[in-house]
């Protein structure tokens, strides 16, 4: 087995990475939904939710982490795992894509995992970043998620994963697909040991990641207005040769169909997670 022992490592004391992700430039941002012009500082204060229509902007992994953990303290784990062109996929285009998205997001991979407190409770937290190859899961993401469940099991701590993903990553072929099995195998053991897994579905959460651990949370929370499902809407439209109804595969749609426990606004996400952990902790 290939488990890095995070104990043996020196914790990275709140080495909070600078926010390399581009915040919309300038002072103002237009809400893509209601077209309201929003003052950036105000938008930040409002956790990147439109104050007029409630539209939830996509968040970078670190933005999300800062919103969830106490005192902005987060100890990143397994940041030293790096993707390689394992197949290799058609003359290096994968490595180019990785390089491009590393520069674009300032991240090493499509998920950041680590340990932090939420509402006073120690947790293991993983956050996907859709900006990094569509938040896709390949070997590194699968390994980091798997380890997160293993750490959670060892420490008897909750695991929280926020997804924003288009599914398994093509560039690592079947190695990516098999991460669905690997992560779920680890989740299975974690659950059997009484673990608490909170799956938070941000926009979008689809395909291979949804068809593995993300749909199997003990508690599943959706952010308002997220796209959630198995197949992407374009694929469905091409298959059935008709237009999809308004709101199909939205958070509200999957809630109605019993796939998620609740839809929680961003301003209440942290406190909701805290309330769930508090009850679980009394066991």
């Amino acid at each position: 087995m290939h488990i890095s022992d995070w104990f043996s490592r020196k914790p990275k004391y709140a080495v909070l990475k600078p926010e390399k992700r581009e915040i919309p430039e300038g002072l103002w941002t237009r809400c893509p939904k209601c077209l309201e012009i929003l003052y950036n500082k105000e938008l930040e204060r409002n956790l990147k939710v439109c104050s007029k229509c409630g539209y939830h902007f996509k968040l970078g992994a670190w933005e999300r982490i800062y919103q969830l953990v106490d005192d902005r303290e987060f100890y990143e784990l397994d940041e030293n795992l790096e993707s390689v062109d394992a197949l290799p996929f058609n003359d290096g285009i994968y490595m180019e894509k990785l390089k491009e998205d590393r520069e674009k997001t300032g991240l090493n991979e499509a998920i950041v995992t680590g340990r932090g407190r939420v509402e006073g409770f120690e947790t293991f937290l993983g956050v996907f970043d859709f900006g990094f190859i569509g938040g896709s899961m390949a070997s590194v993401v699968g390994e980091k998620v798997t380890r997160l469940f293993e750490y959670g099991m060892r420490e008897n701590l909750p695991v929280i994963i926020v997804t924003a993903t288009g599914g398994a990553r093509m560039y690592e072929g079947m190695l990516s697909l098999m991460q669905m099995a690997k992560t779920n195998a680890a989740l299975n053991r974690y659950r059997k040991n009484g673990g608490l897994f909170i799956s938070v579905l941000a926009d979008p959460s689809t395909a291979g990641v949804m068809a593995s651990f993300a749909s199997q949370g003990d508690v599943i929370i959706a952010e308002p207005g997220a796209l959630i499902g198995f197949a992407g809407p374009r694929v469905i439209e091409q298959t059935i040769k008709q237009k999809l109804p308004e709101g199909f595969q939205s958070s509200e749609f999957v809630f109605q169909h019993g796939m998620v426990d609740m839809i929680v606004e961003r301003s209440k996400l942290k406190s909701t997670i805290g309330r769930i952990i508090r009850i679980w902790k009394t066991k």
Partner: protein
Amino acid sequence: MEDEVRELTPWDKVQLSRHPQRPLTIDYIENLFEDFIELHGDRLYGDDPALIGGIGIFKNRGVVVIGHNKGKNVKENVARNFGMPHPEGYRKALRLMRLAERWHLPVISFIDTPGAYPGIGAEERGQAEAIGRNILEAFEIRTPILVVVIGEGGSGGALGIGVGDRILMLENAIYSVISPEGCAAIIWKDSKQAEKAASALKLTAQDLLRFNIIDEIIPEPPGGAHTDMVSTMRTVEEYISKNLEVICSKDIETLLEERYQKVRKIGIFEEKIGAEGRS
């Protein structure tokens, strides 16, 4: 003229895996199992003809069989939704795996699907949840599971019944994270580049054996499985028999541990050791 036969490209194999005459799950069931009794329904919503299942006898041993099933012609294909299951199919498969567990029978799972169906009803009834749950629970099914990829292994729709103790794959079958056409459409914005994508994706049995994703390749007759059904059936029977012996002779705790470790090891990456980024 053996030496004139060129080696098949990945794209050739994609074509062979989808060949209209290629043996289907139903053919293996008819030829390899004695007294197969089909069982229907997921007990929740409906029955899915794209994923069939039941009980039967394989060489004097009771077994549970599940498998995607395409049709032999257009009419059958429409009825069977081209082997693309809805959530009901996956839930039926899980129900039958649980039945196998209670009866202490091994499960044999045949994979042959373009993928799980992308449709309105499938989404409404939780396609992702159904596949995710099957994968999750397969790791706790306390009975041996043998998986045989006979044709197309289409992504999550294949993996939904694809977790097991031994994964066998026919020589010209494919197993891929995305269809070559889908991949080409995303990367090169042109589904006609599918041939290039088929090579890039490393979706052949030979590739997957190299990555330890499958355990063994079942050889096919020279022109492909459909050119000599008798020989194909005989070979597949022999490989199933041999592998079933192995997994049925192990105690269940060992089997579950090995099932876990097999996937736990999958993934290729670099783990940089050193002070980089460390405070």
